[in-house]
């Protein structure tokens, strides 16, 4: 079998063992400017940020941006949504989704990437097949960079997880940037602002 042939060739040919680098702490950007940096990155990669204070505020955004006849889907429980959704649908059934929005685990300030796993998607295909995408990000869940990100992901189990950074895009035709390649045409971040501690009673 080829497995044995390949593995024995590798064993014969691989060089002397070298050590893995010690874990290195990289810390840009700085923690103080983390929300500003994140918002700046989202704008740079073609997304937009809408500040909200509670999840229900998303309904207002939807009523302003979409028609009642549009198929709008979210796996977030307890929210008013317009198309019934169980999660047991065939992925192909979501083909006419106009807007889908999700809770997420965290967002990364250095590049605007948002980490979401299958359990928060309802269906793997949904964040990709929807025409427009919404992502709920709690301000306190914005982290500095990818090294911090994997400290969290390291301890997660999932069947599928992805970083999403902005709407789908391509520049394959003469390097002209076009938003809306095969995935979502737009990405809106619903940034849930943290309430400063002294307001808590």
């Amino acid at each position, binding site marked *: 079998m*080829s*497995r044995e*042939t*390949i*593995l024995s*060739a*590798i*064993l*014969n*040919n*691989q*060089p*002397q*063992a*070298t*050590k*893995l*680098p010690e874990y*290195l702490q*990289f810390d*840009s950007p700085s923690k103080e400017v983390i929300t500003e940096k994140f918002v700046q*990155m989202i704008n740079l*990669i073609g997304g937009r940020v809408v500040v909200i204070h509670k999840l229900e505020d998303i309904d207002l955004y939807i009523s302003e941006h979409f028609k009642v006849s549009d198929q709008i889907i979210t796996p977030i429980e307890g929210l008013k949504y317009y198309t019934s959704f169980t999660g047991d649908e065939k*992925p*192909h059934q979501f083909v006419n989704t106009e807007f889908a929005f999700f809770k997420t685990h965290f967002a990364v300030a*250095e*590049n*605007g*990437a948002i980490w979401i796993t299958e359990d928060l998607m309802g*269906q*793997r*295909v949904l964040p*990709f097949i929807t025409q427009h995408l919404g992502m709920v990000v709690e301000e306190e869940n914005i982290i500095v*960079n*990818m*090294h911090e990100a*994997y*400290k969290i992901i*390291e301890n997660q189990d999932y*069947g*599928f997880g*992805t*970083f*999403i*950074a902005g*709407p*789908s*895009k*391509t*520049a*394959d*035709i*003469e*390097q*002209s940037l*076009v938003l*809306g390649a*095969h*995935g*979502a045409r737009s990405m809106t971040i619903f940034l849930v602002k943290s309430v400063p501690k002294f307001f808590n009673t």
Partner: protein
Amino acid sequence: MDKLNTLKHSELSDLFNKDEERVNWHDDTLWWIRAKRDKAAHGISEWELLRETASQIKNNVLSNLYNYLIEFESKAQANGIKVHWAANAEEHNKIVLSLLQSKGINQMVKSKSMLTEECHLNQYLEDNGIDVIDSDLGERIVQLAKEPPSHIVLPCIHKKKEEIGQIFHENLGTEAGVSDPQILTETARIHLRETFLTRKSALTGVNFAIAETGEFVVCTNEGNADMGAHLADIHIACMGIEKIIPKKKHLSVFLRLLTRSATGQPITTYSSHFKKPRKGQEMHIVLVDNGRSIQLGREDFRNSLKCIRCGACMNTCPVYRRSGGHSYHNAIAGPIGAILAPNLDMKEYADLPFASTLCGSCTNVCPVKIDIHDQLYKWRQVIVKEGNTTVAKTIAMKVMDFTLSSPTRFKLAGKIGRWTLKHAPFTVNNQFNLWFKNREMPEAPKESFSEWYKRNNTEK
């Protein structure tokens, strides 16, 4: 293409260089991408430390590949993924075909995978009655044009929008003369949505595979890999064995480097981690050797296996920018292609390590610190030693050796050269002299440096 395949890099470059305006445009476009890479890299204070870290991780991978592959296999299997091993391109293609045939599938959608280009999978599947549609926009364009990609990240970087408009007019029914990228992209989106929805099988490449967890990561900007994989009943992911990395946390280093090096973006739009098949879906991984284990044993060249396929070395290369990707007559063009290809077939690709000025820019931008220009230089020596250079080049090198190894002969040759340039320029200013192509011959100096030195020393 068959005839083109027999041509060598310099001849193919000549063809590309017939249209000077296009060469300048190609050159400028790629340099612009290189400049974006610089801006992104300079935005991170620890950039050089990241490169060094990535390089060390990859060195470790090569030194422990045996264990990592076995670890990856068992973890992936535990996750419900079926793992296949292919010693070469032929076996890889057979595995993919048999997976499709076992399901009675004759249509497949594919996202970008340079490995399948290397294995010429599309041709093989088409010969066996399978319809393959490439879903990356650039790859779809070159597929419709019946051409190979000319760049690993930007497959149709050599095409003007008017040409793409014409291809779309002929194949996808857009109006004649339409060349607006926005309209063409929208047309492709609609055409490929239909494809995604109707294909039962999807093939993707793999950017990174993690030994520790048995998962693999696929990066795209367009979302085409995800659209294909999440709608298909069977997802086949094909990867070269060198794509393994030890631990999940190492992704942080590579994902920070990959797109900044490739296009100057902070990260791709999608970095998808596939760990388990979704309910009711089959997921397969094909691990492909195809010469990699041999390259691993070549001490001078094994570092080429550290490559993460960002394309930075192409964008910066003064030769690639002016000769075009197709001049390398290999799935992977540019400096990295020129050090990978001779391992596969030294005779066929003997010209590629010479398609370089050895300026070293490729090595300077490489995010995993591959000594690309050193390897180009070393390949030249191996290729000449094994007798794989043309007769003309061999004779020219022998004459050079004969001349340069004796001070008397060197001095005499210099004299003859200066005399010829001065008194009989027509003997060198003609098509038989390769140095005359695209440049003027220099004016002959009055004397050589050693003559000048001697004169000035005696006058003291």
